[in-house]
């Protein structure tokens, strides 16, 4: 009898039961740990390959997930950026409050309490020898009023309008003040306290800084002496800064030097205007 070669089960049918038999043998044998030695042997070969592939797959998967969630990540980023800006604004507000608080403390501790002061905020300006403040005639400020922080001299009101004023700083070329040189710390200079005067002098603004002239040649004055404004136009016992770069020529009648201001004029935020001086 001729064998039908087209019958799909003719040759291959026997392979499926054989395969089935082997797989059942492995499954049942493995369930009673009969093939643990096979597992151990095969794992030595296959585990490193599987581990490398698994790590590579997880890395690619992570990238794919990142790409899929790009829109969500963008939204999160925008949200976080917004929160960051809000926090920065909040921090700036608290920093301003802190600065104002410290300025007020200094003002209460070191200023002349008999005078009347107006609190003003410094507005940004490009000039190095003047600054603008946010208080003007509406607050009772007038031209010639003195601007201070505690016992430290800042400048004098040069121009004034309803809502703001222009302050001429001590480093302005048009500024000229009588000062005294004393020893000690700037915080120790107050209205009612006696201070030992070393010399009188005159300060004026210049391109090099605040220049100090007419310092007496007779007394032993050194760099670091405190420069205190003592001028009838602006008041007494207002600290300006420290003496630096004093001239050393003994042949001169008087000596000169420069003043390193106690305040950094570029970073001023809160000042007090002494009205009605």
């Amino acid at each position, binding site marked *: 009898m001729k064998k039908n070669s087209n019958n*799909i089960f003719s040759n*291959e049918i026997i*392979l*499926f039961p054989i*395969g*089935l038999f*082997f*797989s*059942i*043998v*492995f*499954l049942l*044998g*493995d*369930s009673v740990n009969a*093939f643990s030695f*096979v*597992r151990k042997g*095969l*794992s030595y*070969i*296959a*585990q490193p*390959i*599987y581990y*490398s*592939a*698994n790590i*590579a*797959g*997880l890395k*690619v*998967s992570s990238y*794919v997930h990142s790409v899929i969630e790009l829109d969500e990540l963008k939204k999160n980023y925008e949200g976080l950026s917004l929160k960051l800006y809000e926090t920065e604004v909040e921090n700036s507000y608290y920093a301003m409050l802190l600065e104002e608080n410290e300025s007020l403390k200094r003002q209460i501790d070191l200023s002349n309490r008999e005078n009347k002061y107006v609190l003003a905020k410094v507005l940004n300006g490009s000039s190095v020898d003047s600054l603008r403040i946010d208080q003007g005639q509406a607050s009772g400020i007038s031209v010639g009023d003195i601007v201070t922080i505690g016992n430290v001299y800042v400048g004098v009101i040069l121009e004034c309008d309803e809502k703001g004023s222009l302050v001429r700083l001590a480093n302005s070329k048009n500024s000229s003040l009588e000062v005294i040189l004393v020893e000690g710390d700037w915080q120790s200079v107050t209205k009612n306290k006696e201070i030992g005067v070393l010399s009188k002098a005159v300060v004026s603004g210049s391109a090099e800084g605040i220049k100090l002239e007419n310092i007496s040649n007779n007394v032993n004055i050194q760099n670091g002496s405190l420069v205190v404004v003592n001028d009838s136009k602006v008041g007494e016992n207002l600290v300006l800064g420290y003496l630096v770069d004093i001239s050393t020529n003994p042949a001169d009648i008087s000596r000169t030097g420069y003043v390193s201001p106690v305040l950094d004029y570029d970073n001023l935020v809160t000042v007090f205007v002494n009205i009605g001086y």
Partner: protein
Amino acid sequence: MILYVLFAIVGFVVLLFLESFSLSLFGFSLLFVVFLFFYKIIDLKLLLIISAFVTLFLDVVLNIPLGSTFLSFLSALFFYRVLSLFLSTERGFFSYIFKILAIFFFYIASFYIQRLFTFGNLGYFEVNLLISSSVKAFFGLLILSLLDNFTQKLRGNSKGNSLKFK
């Protein structure tokens, strides 16, 4: 002979790496698609021996009962063989449908066989399994089609089933 042995070792390592990679990346088994592609290209006896060998390694690294992947593979291949009784599995629209069904059956069988021999029961019917198996089956068909197209380009017009490397 040495060359064949080297080819076999490299092929085994590459196959195991790709299978592990695709499993960890998409949960997709490349092995069955590759074996389905080689079905009727190489001798079934050889295909079953190779698949039994490779799936044993896979069972070990995936820490599932030994022989479960081979049993799933065997069941799906038998199912595919039964389908070929009705219509051609070589060409035409239904050949794609049969291939999708075979791959789909492989995933379903693989899940329930592993479950049966690990927990001792079949668990409950899950819709997610059907959906994921369908997606994987469709994806598997795409890979199978790509492999078919690739080998058709390598084949000479007059050489029949033999591969021709230019």
